[in-house]
C-alpha cells in the first residue's frame, strides 16, 4: 500500500513539476537514440539541435528561445505513445518533430490529431501523411519513397530502361518502397521482371541475387533497403559478377555503406538529397548555400560530416521555426496553418512546398541522382 | 486376488531388470517387498504404478488390465504410490501438501477455479477437512501450518503417506518408507502403517530394514536379480535358504582357499594408512553415520559389511570428501583429510570403485581407464593429444593400461568398446581397472558384486586377493558378507549407522552377530536363535 501510493505520489509530483516559463518556446522531438533505428535517430537529433542552436544564436523567434525536448522512443511504438503524451502534456510542447521510425510515427498519429499539435515527421513512408484530410496535423520532411521512385523512373525512361529487377529488405522502409514500386512502375510503363526479398539481418543475399542474375532480360537492378544489408547486397552483387547497372534507394546516402562495402559500392547509382555533392552543385542551385552552411556548422559542432538524416532533423526544425515566426504565435493551430503555407523553401534535404493537399512537401528538384565512384559520392551526370 | 501380476518382464536396453515376476495381492494385505540392492524392487513398483510400461507380461487390478496405464489413470482406480526420494512439495505447507493430494479426486477443474465457483469453495472445505483428518492419522496435526521443507525426514515420510491417502486410493505402494529414518521415527512409521491397515488399506512396501519388516509385514515377497525367489509369511522367509544366500551371499571356494594362504600383513609395524575416528555424518536431519571409527593398516584388506541402509555408502562418501561430516576426523596416511575434496583424496593415492560402477558410458573402455589417471597427469600432458612421456619410465599411462590389461585380460579385448555397452561384470572390472590407473595406495570398493554374475564375482574377488598380495591396501564394502569376509583380513559390521562388531574376518564369519545385522532383527523371539543358526550355516 505504502509503496503504491508513494509511487503514484512521486509520479504526480513529477507531472506537476512541469511548470513552464513563457520566455521559451517548447518543441518536442521523438528521435530514437537507442533501439534498432538509433543510428538514424541520433543523427536526426543532432541536426535538430544544430538548428535550435542556430536559431537561438540569432535571437530566437521574436526574442523567445527554442527549447527542444527530446523523448527517446527507443524505436518502440509503445514508448512513442508514452513519449508523445509526455511531451504534449507534461512539457506542453507547441509542436513536434521526429521519429525516424515510420512505425513510431504511425502509432502516434491519432494522438497528435486529437491533441491538435502539429508534427513534422521524419518517417519516410508516404502513408504517414496521406490521406491529408485525415492527417491534418501531420507533415513529413524527408524524401518519400514515391518521390525518389518517380525520379528514378524518369531516369530509366531517359536511359531507355524498361525492364528492372527489384530486390528489397523485409524492413518497414523497404517493404513500403516495394509496394510503391509495384504500384508506380506499371503505371509508368516499367516492367518489374522479378522481385526478391531478403531478411534485414541476413548474412548473405546471394540466393536472391542469383535468381535476379538468371533473368537475362533485366536491364537494371533496383535495391531497396537500409543498414548493413545494403552493403552485403553490394558485395554479393559484385561477387556474382552481375554486370547490370545497380540502383539503390535514397538510403544509400548512408556514409557507412561505402565504409562497409568498400570497392563493391563503386558504381551504385541512387537518388537522394544533395548534401553529399554540394561542392559539385552549380551556384544557381537554391539549396547550395543552405546545405554548405549546414555542413560547415555541423562539422564544427560534431567534428564529422553530417548524413542525410541529420539534414532532415535540421530542416524540420528550421521550417517549424519559420512557421512559428510567420504565425506570430505559439498557438499550435496557427503554427499548423503557417506550416501548410511553406512554399519553395530551400532545405538541406530538399526544396519544400506544402499545401492543404500535400503534406509531404519535398519536391523532385531537391533530388539529385548520385553515383559512388572510387569510394566517393559524386553527382551522376 | 485383486491385483495379479503375471509374468512381468522389464528391459532397459540390454539390461533385464525384471523377469517373469508373478504374484498376487488381495485387498487388505500388508506386503513387504524385499531383496538386496539392485534386485529390481523399485522397478517393480514403477511398473505396477504405471511409471514404466512393462516389456512383458500383464497386470490386472480389479479385473482390469492396467499394465499400460499411466499413473494418473491408476490413481482413480485405487492405486497410489510414494517415492524413495520423497518428492515433497517443499514450497507448500504441511497441510497444503495433503490437500494437494486430494485435488485430483475432488475434481475441481481449472476453469471453475478461475471464477471461484461455489463448487470450488465446497471442495476446498472438504479437502481442508480431509487433510486435517489424515494429518491427525499420521500424527502431524501439530505441524499443520509449517512449511513442509522444515519437517524432519521421518515427518516428511509420514507426510507423503498422508498426501497419498488424500488422493483417495486405498492401495498404497510405499517405496522405502523407512529409508534414512532413526529408530524412533521408524517406530512411528510402523505405527502409522499398522493404523492404515486397520483402516482397511492395502499396503505394499519396499524396505531394507529387516527388523522393521519383520515387525509389521504379514507377507514378504523376496526379489533377487529381477526374479521372485520367495513369497511367504515372515517366519518362513527368515529361514529360507535362498533368501539368506541372496542377502549374505555365497562364499566362493577358490577365494576361501586363497585367503588361507595369504601372508599376514605387516600392519603391526607401521602407522595406519586410513584412520577414521568417531565420525558422524548427517544429511539434513538424518544421521547416517554415528561415531564410527575404523582403521586400515598398509597392506590390509578390510571388509565393511552390513545390510542396506546400514551406513556403508555414507562411510565411503566421507572418505571421498562427498559427505557432510558433522564431527570426527579422517586421517589418510597421517594427514587430516576430514574436509578434503574428492580430488585431494584421489591425488593422495586413494582410488574409489563406487557402487553401481559409475563408468563414463559414452566413452570407450580405454578412455575410461585413462581418466582414472587424470589427477596424476601433468598439466601439459592433459592438453596434448599424445603423451609426451611415452616410453619413459614410471607414471606412463600407456604402460599402466597394459598392466591393467594384464590383470583383467577381458578389458584388452574390449578396449575400444563403449563402457555403456559392457555387461555388469565387465563394467565392474573396468571400474576396478580405472581405479588401479591411479596407482593407488588405498583401493576402496563399494559393492563390487552388485549386479554381477556369480562367476564374475568369484573372479573379481580372486583379483582383489592378488592385488592385496602385491601389497595394496583395500577397503571392501560388501553386502555379500560371506564372499567379502572370506578374502578379508579383518571386518567391520555396520548396523544403523554404527559399528556393531569388528574383528578378524574368521571371527566374524563364525559370529552370529553378523547374521543378526542382516536378518536377525526379526522379532520372532524364542525362535530367533534357531533361525539364525540355520541362516548362517550355508
Amino acid at each position: 500500500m505504502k509503496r503504491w501510493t508513494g509511487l503514484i505520489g512521486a509520479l504526480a509530483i513529477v507531472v506537476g513539476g512541469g511548470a513552464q516559463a513563457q520566455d521559451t518556446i517548447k518543441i518536442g522531438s521523438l528521435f530514437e537514440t537507442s533501439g534498432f533505428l538509433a543510428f538514424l535517430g541520433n543523427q536526426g537529433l543532432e541536426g535538430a539541435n544544430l538548428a535550435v542552436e542556430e536559431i537561438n544564436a540569432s535571437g530566437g523567434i521574436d526574442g523567445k528561445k527554442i527549447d527542444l525536448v527530446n523523448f527517446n522512443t527507443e524505436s518502440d511504438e509503445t514508448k512513442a505513445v508514452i513519449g508523445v503524451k509526455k511531451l504534449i502534456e507534461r512539457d506542453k510542447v507547441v509542436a513536434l518533430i521526429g521519429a525516424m521510425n515510420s512505425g513510431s510515427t504511425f502509432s502516434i498519429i491519432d494522438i497528435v490529431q486529437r491533441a491538435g499539435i502539429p508534427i513534422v515527421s521524419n518517417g519516410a513512408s508516404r502513408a504517414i501523411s496521406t490521406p491529408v484530410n485525415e492527417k491534418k496535423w501531420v507533415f513529413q520532411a524527408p524524401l518519400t519513397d514515391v518521390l525518389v521512385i518517380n525520379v528514378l523512373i524518369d531516369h530509366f525512361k531517359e536511359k531507355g530502361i524498361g525492364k528492372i529487377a527489384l530486390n528489397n529488405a523485409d524492413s518497414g522502409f523497404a517493404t513500403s518502397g516495394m509496394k510503391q514500386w509495384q504500384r508506380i512502375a506499371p503505371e509508368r510503363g516499367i516492367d518489374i521482371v522479378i522481385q526478391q526479398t531478403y531478411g534485414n539481418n541476413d548474412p548473405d543475399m546471394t540466393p536472391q541475387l542469383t535468381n535476379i542474375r538468371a533473368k537475362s532480360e533485366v536491364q537494371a537492378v533496383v535495391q531497396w533497403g537500409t543498414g548493413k544489408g545494403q552493403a552485403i547486397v553490394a558485395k554479393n552483387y559484385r561477387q556474382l559478377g552481375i554486370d547490370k547497372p545497380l540502383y539503390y534507394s535514397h538510403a544509400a546516402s548512408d556514409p557507412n555503406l561505402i565504409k562497409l562495402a568498400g570497392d563493391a559500392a563503386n558504381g551504385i547509382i541512387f537518388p537522394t538529397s544533395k548534401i553529399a555533392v554540394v561542392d559539385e552543385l552549380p551556384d544557381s542551385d537554391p539549396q547550395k548555400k543552405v546545405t554548405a552552411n549546414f555542413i560547415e556548422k555541423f562539422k564544427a559542432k560534431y567534428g564529422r560530416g553530417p548524413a542525410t538524416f541529420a539534414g532532415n532533423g535540421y530542416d524540420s526544425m528550421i521550417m517549424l521555426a519559420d512557421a512559428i515566426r510567420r504565425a506570430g504565435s505559439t498557438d499550435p493551430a496557427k503554427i499548423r496553418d503557417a506550416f501548410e503555407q511553406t512554399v519553395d523553401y530551400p532545405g538541406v534535404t530538399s526544396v519544400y512546398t506544402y499545401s492543404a493537399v500535400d503534406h509531404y512537401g519535398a519536391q523532385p528538384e531537391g533530388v539529385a541522382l548520385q553515383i559512388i565512384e572510387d569510394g566517393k559520392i559524386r553527382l551522376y551526370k | 486376488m485383486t491385483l495379479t501380476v503375471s509374468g512381468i518382464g522389464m528391459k532397459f536396453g540390454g539390461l533385464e531388470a525384471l523377469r517373469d515376476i508373478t504374484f498376487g495381492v488381495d485387498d487388505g494385505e500388508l506386503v513387504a517387498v524385499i531383496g538386496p540392492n539392485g534386485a529390481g524392487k523399485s522397478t517393480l513398483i514403477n511398473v505396477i504404478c504405471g511409471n514404466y510400461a512393462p516389456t512383458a507380461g500383464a497386470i490386472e487390478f480389479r479385473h482390469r488390465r492396467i499394465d499400460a496405464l499411466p499413473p494418473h489413470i491408476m490413481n482413480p482406480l485405487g492405486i497410489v504410490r510414494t517415492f524413495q526420494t520423497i518428492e515433497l512439495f517443499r514450497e507448500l505447507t504441511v497441510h497444503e501438501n495433503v490437500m494437494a493430494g486430494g485435488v485430483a479426486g475432488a475434481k475441481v477443474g481449472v476453469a471453475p477455479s478461475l471464477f471461484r465457483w461455489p463448487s470450488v469453495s465446497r471442495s476446498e472445505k472438504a479437502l481442508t477437512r480431509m487433510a486435517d483428518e489424515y494429518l491427525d492419522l499420521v500424527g502431524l496435526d501439530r505441524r499443520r501450518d509449517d512449511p513442509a521443507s522444515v519437517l524432519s525426514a521421518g515427518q516428511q515420510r509420514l507426510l507423503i503417506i498422508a498426501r497419498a491417502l488424500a488422493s483417495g486410493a486405498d492401495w498404497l505402494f510405499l517405496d522405502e518408507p523407512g529409508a534414512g529414518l532413526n529408530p524412533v521415527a521408524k517406530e512411528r512409521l510402523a505405527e502409522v502403517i499398522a493404523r492404515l491397515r486397520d483402516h482397511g488399506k492395502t499396503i505394499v512396501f519396499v524396505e531394507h530394514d529387516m527388523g522393521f519388516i519383520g515387525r509389521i509385514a504379514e507377507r514378504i515377497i523376496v526379489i533377487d536379480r529381477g526374479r521372485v525367489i520367495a513369497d511367504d509369511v515372515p517366519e518362513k522367509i527368515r529361514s529360507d535358504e535362498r533368501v539368506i544366500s541372496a542377502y549374505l551371499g555365497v562364499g566362493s571356494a577358490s577365494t576361501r582357499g586363497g585367503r588361507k594362504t595369504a601372508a599376514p600383513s605387516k600392519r603391526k609395524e607401521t602407522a595406519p594408512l586410513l584412520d577414521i575416528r568417531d565420525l558422524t555424518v548427517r544429511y539434513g536431519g538424518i544421521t547416517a553415520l554415528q561415531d564410527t571409527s575404523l582403521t586400515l593398516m598398509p597392506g590390509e584388506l578390510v571388509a565393511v559389511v552390513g545390510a542396506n541402509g546400514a551406513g556403508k555408502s555414507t562411510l565411503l562418501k566421507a572418505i571421498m570428501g562427498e559427505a557432510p561430516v558433522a564431527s570426527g576426523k579422517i586421517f589418510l596416511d597421517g594427514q587430516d583429510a576430514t574436509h578434503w575434496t574428492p580430488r585431494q583424496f584421489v591425488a593422495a593415492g586413494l582410488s574409489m570403485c563406487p557402487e553401481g560402477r559409475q563408468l563414463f558410458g559414452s566413452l570407450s573402455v580405454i578412455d575410461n581407464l585413462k581418466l582414472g589417471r587424470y589427477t596424476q597427469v601433468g598439466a601439459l600432458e592433459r592438453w596434448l593429444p599424445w603423451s609426451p612421456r611415452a616410453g619413459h619410465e614410471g607414471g606412463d599411462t600407456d604402460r599402466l593400461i597394459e598392466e591393467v590389461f594384464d590383470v583383467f585380460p577381458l578389458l584388452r579385448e574390449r578396449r575400444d568398446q563403449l563402457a555403456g555397452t559392457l555387461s555388469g561384470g565387465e563394467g565392474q572390472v573396468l571400474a576396478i581397472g580405472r581405479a588401479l590407473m591411479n596407482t593407488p595406495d588405498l583401493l576402496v570398493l563399494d559393492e563390487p558384486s552388485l549386479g554381477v554374475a556369480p562367476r564374475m564375482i568369484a573372479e573379481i574377488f580372486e583379483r582383489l586377493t592378488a592385488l592385496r598380495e602385491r601389497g595394496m591396501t583395500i577397503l571392501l564394502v560388501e553386502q555379500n558378507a560371506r564372499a567379502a569376509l572370506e578374502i578379508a583380513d579383518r571386518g567391520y559390521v555396520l548396523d544403523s549407522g554404527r559399528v556393531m562388531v569388528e574383528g578378524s574376518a574368521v571371527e566374524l564369519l563364525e559370529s552370529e552377530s553378523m547374521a543378526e545385522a542382516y536378518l536377525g532383527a526379526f522379532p520372532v523371539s524364542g525362535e530367533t536363535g534357531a533361525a539364525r543358526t540355520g541362516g548362517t550355516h550355508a
Partner: protein
Amino acid sequence: MVDALQFLVSGLVIGSIYGLAGIGFTGIYNVTGVVNFAQGDKAMIGAMLAISLSQMGLPPIVAILLAVGLTGAVAVVIECFTVRPVGNDVWRGIIVTIGVGIVLRGIAVVVWGTEARGLPAFSGEEPIHFLGATVSPQSLWVMGITAVLAIGLALFFQLTFIGKAFRACAVNPFASRIVGIEIRTMSPIAFAISGVLGAIAGIIIAPITLMQYDTGLLIGLKGFVACIIGGFGNPMGALLGGLILGIAETFSAGYLSSGYKNAIAFVLLLGFLIFRPEGLFREIDSKLVKHER
C-alpha cells in the same frame, strides 16, 4: 543448374557460419549442461574488439589474437559471476545467460554505437569461380576455419585428457569427481574455450556478414538450431547441422518465398525438437526429454 549450384555453395558458406556459431555451444554444454544464450554475443564482442584494436593501429594478426584472448577472458568472468552462482538450475541458467546477452549488447552499443562495422577480408575480395558458381575468398576462410575448428574440437574431445574430462563431466558428474575431475575448475575452462571459439567465429565472419551490436543474437540462435539438428554437445554434429540449416535456407530463399527463409530455421528447430530431440547424431539426453510418464 548453375543456380542450384550457387544456392548450394552459398548454403555451405552460410551453413559454415551457423556451424561455427554452433560449435561454440558444445564445449560449455558438455561440461556444465548450460546452454549459453549469450554465445552469439561473444562472437559479436570478439569481432568488435578485433575491429577496434586494428583501427587503433595494431597489426591485424595481433589485434585478432588480442581480441580472441580478451573474449575468452570475458567468458571466464561471465562464468564466475553469473553461471556459477546459478549452479545446475536449468531454468535460471537460461535466464541468466539471456541477461548476460542483453548486457553484452548494451555495452556494445555504448562502446561501439549501433552502426555496423566490417573487417577487411583476409585475402581480398576477388571472387573465385567454380563451375559457374562464385564464392568470395573470405567464404573459403570461413569454411576452412570452421572445418578445422570442428575437427580440432572433436579431436580435442577424443584425444586429450582434458577433452575426455569434459566429456566425462557431461556423462557422469559423480564419477568425474570420483576420479578427481573438478567441475569447478572445468567450467571456466569450458567458458574460456567457448569464448575463444565465439571470438574466432565473429572475426572470420565479420568481413562477410558485417557486425553490429545485435548481429550476434540471430547468428547465435541459428547456431543453436544447428546444434539441435546435429545433436547437442557434438562439434561435428553442430557443423553438419549448420550446413543442413544453411542449405535449407538458401534453397528456400532461392526457390520458395525468400521472406519466409528465416522461418525455415525455426520450423526445423521445432520439428527436430519434437520429432527427433536427440538430433541426428546423438543418443537421447534424458535430462531434456520426457521419458517417464
